[in-house]
């Protein structure tokens, strides 16, 4: 076992770093080191296009679908260099890491031809539609319904219902929607995985303001929204299988990119502690050291899972990443606030918008909740990782 990379991989690393630095020192300098997820949207769309043009948008996709078929080591390297370079958070990530891989795995040839190129080129952005007000942790409890109807454009799905936590939906062209297509079905049965255009009268968005003051998420209401009959992935009624395959993609290598962001945050905390004297507090020192150690271990946890390749994704350690980083990051937020001290209680201007470190404190409260609460993660770890008996249903 080894942690290092081969000379070829190091050469790849240099290539990636060089391309990123060229772009981010040049045409995209304005969005380098951008912290907000919602600012500078036109520039970020351009950035998605530039990634696509450079062939860097989805390097892990197979070559036949426009990717580079990059090895896991190369994906790791790309993710690390991407974050190291201060490249902006990707508004194309739902398409690249969720919709695309799902279509590659479950889609028809026609669907692949229709959707994959636009994801790669950055022309079409995607949003996800899973959660509902009454299907949060209990995802199978979905109530959004769709039925096939003949319409002016032929046979179409007509969708009624509501999704929540649909991030980036206000910027996206498409949303995938898990909905109930068999009347009277319950739980994971009778669901279908539909691809729905967002720009239509039947779709209404309402931004959800978070405790940070930002509105990163939306509620998305479907009121007779329509999509072509062909825009179902997998068989109608088998949406659960498709969605679950997609969720496991969500847990993948992307956690490595986030770690570089974490590293940058930790560096800022260290700098702040040195600047304001918090670094002399023995407890703060311990907590920063713990955070640093935890981040290193997070990286090697991920590398350990990734090194096993896809076949062994179900080994015990593959279940721990989400709860580990969510919990780690929440603690980092508390640490950040404690390092800043009382000045963190005051916004930097007239809006409810705080400095980067207090912002971590607020933002991270959601990270042990969205994408599966820590409680759900522990159930999964206990049942799938350790084989403990299931909870009786009520």
């Amino acid at each position, binding site marked *: 076992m080894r942690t290092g990379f081969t000379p070829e991989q190091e050469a790849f690393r240099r290539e990636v770093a060089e391309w990123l630095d060229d772009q981010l020192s040049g045409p995209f300098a304005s969005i380098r080191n951008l912290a907000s997820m919602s600012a500078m949207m036109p520039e970020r769309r351009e950035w998605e296009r530039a990634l696509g043009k450079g062939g860097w948008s989805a390097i892990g996709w197979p070559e036949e679908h426009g990717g580079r078929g990059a090895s896991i080591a190369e994906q790791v390297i790309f993710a690390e260099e991407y974050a190291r370079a201060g490249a902006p958070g990707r508004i194309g990530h739902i398409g690249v890491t969720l919709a695309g891989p799902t279509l590659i795995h479950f889609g028809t040839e026609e669907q692949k031809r229709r959707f994959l190129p636009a994801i790669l080129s950055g022309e079409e952005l995607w949003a996800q539609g899973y*959660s509902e007000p*009454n299907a*949060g*942790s*209990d995802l199978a*409890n979905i109530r959004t319904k769709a039925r096939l109807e003949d319409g002016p454009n032929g046979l179409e799905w007509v969708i009624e219902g509501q999704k*929540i*936590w649909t991030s980036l939906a206000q910027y996206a062209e498409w949303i995938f929607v898990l909905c109930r297509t068999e009347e009277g079905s319950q739980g994971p049965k009778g669901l279908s995985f539909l691809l729905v255009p967002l720009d239509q009268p039947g779709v209404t968005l309402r931004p*959800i*303001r*978070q*405790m940070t*003051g930002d509105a990163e998420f939306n509620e998305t209401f479907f009121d007779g929204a329509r999509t072509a009959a062909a825009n179902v992935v997998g068989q109608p009624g088998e949406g659960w299988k498709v969605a679950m395959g997609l969720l496991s993609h969500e847990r993948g290598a992307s956690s490595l990119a986030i770690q570089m962001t974490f590293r940058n945050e930790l560096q800022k905390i260290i700098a702040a502690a040195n600047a*304001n*004297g*918090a670094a002399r*507090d023995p*407890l703060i020192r311990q907590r920063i050291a713990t955070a640093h150690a935890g981040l290193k271990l997070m990286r090697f946890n991920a590398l350990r899972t990734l090194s096993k390749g896809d076949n062994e994704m179900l080994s015990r350690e593959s279940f721990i990443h989400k709860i580990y980083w969510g919990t780690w990051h929440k603690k980092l937020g508390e640490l950040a*606030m*404690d390092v*800043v*001290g*009382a*000045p*963190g*209680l*005051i*916004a930097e*201007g*007239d*809006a*409810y*918008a*705080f400095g980067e470190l*207090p912002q971590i*404190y607020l933002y991270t*409260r*959601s990270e*042990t*909740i*969205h994408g599966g*609460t*820590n*409680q759900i993660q*522990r159930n999964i770890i206990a049942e799938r990782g350790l084989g403990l008996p299931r*909870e009786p*249903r*009520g």
Partner: protein
Amino acid sequence: MQFTFSEDETLLQQSVAGFCTTHGSSASTRKVMETEAGYDSALWRAVMGEMGLGGIALPARHGGAEMGHVGLAIAMMEMGRVLLPSPYFSSVGMAAQAILLGGTDAQRDALLPSIATGECIAALAWRGAGRGHEPDVRLDDALRLNGVAGFVPFGHVADLLVVAARRESGEIVLVAVRANTPGVTIERHVSLDLTRPLATVRFAGVVLSQDDILGSGEDAAAALARTLDLARIALAAEQAGGAEAVLDMTVAYTKDRVQFGRPIGSFQALKHRMADMMVEVETAKTGAYYAACIVDEGSDELEEAAAIAASYCGEAFMGCSGNAIQLHGGIGFTWEHDAHLYFKRARADAMLLGDAYSQRERIAGMIGLEKVA
């Protein structure tokens, strides 16, 4: 030994609780917190006038009700439960105490009655605008004030500022200065805690008279230290009340919310988390009551009790309000749900008067842990 409410205290608690329930709804708090003042002046008059809470811990001579610090704790706990936005803690829990402890009889007679009625809103400006806890205002020998005081709760609506400053000799001096004195500027900030805005107060050559000086030297330093301890105890009661409110809110929500075919409050992981919260809530209440009693009994354990209550209650409120967000799931971190208001209050409270670490370091000294062998 009667470590439970007397009849009078029970009546007080019920009346404040009733008032807060009626006037401290989420909707009205949210309306008030969006205003520039950050408090509702009609409500303020009711709290101070009809309810008579302004003088609760003051001697009768100064317009007080003589319910002591237990009375103050009861009021703070109930207001904390609903996050009642008002300068009460700032004016009554901090500034009035500083005048009572640091001023002369004449100054007390002159200043306290109007604070007790709420006509005069006072605020204590005692620390600089940075991370530390030292005064950053200087009083020169010509009695001119210069410097900055940070994190003054409701400082922007204060009529009277009690300021901790240093003389050129380095001595602590406590002064009382009207907010409209030339050279005083007050900046209200958008604050993390939406229900208790903070202000920065700047002094640029503010000229004082000898009468504005409450006291100097060791006495003033002691009065300031004791004021902060009394404030910690009052704040501990608020924290305990806030912690209990988020626990109750979470219990109610989890009994109601159904997932996987069961109310989520029947899942053991959630039950146990709430059980741990309850242990913290009850212990926080105990800590606040105990410290308040210690004040009223004139015990020499006051510093210890204040440090214990502050360190425990501060962390309990932060922990419980954080758990409340977690146990509410997605809705818990939205702006429209109240959980974040408590979470932010908890954080602000915990940073206002020195962190738990420094309070525990004080305790370590009190119990005889040697620093150098």
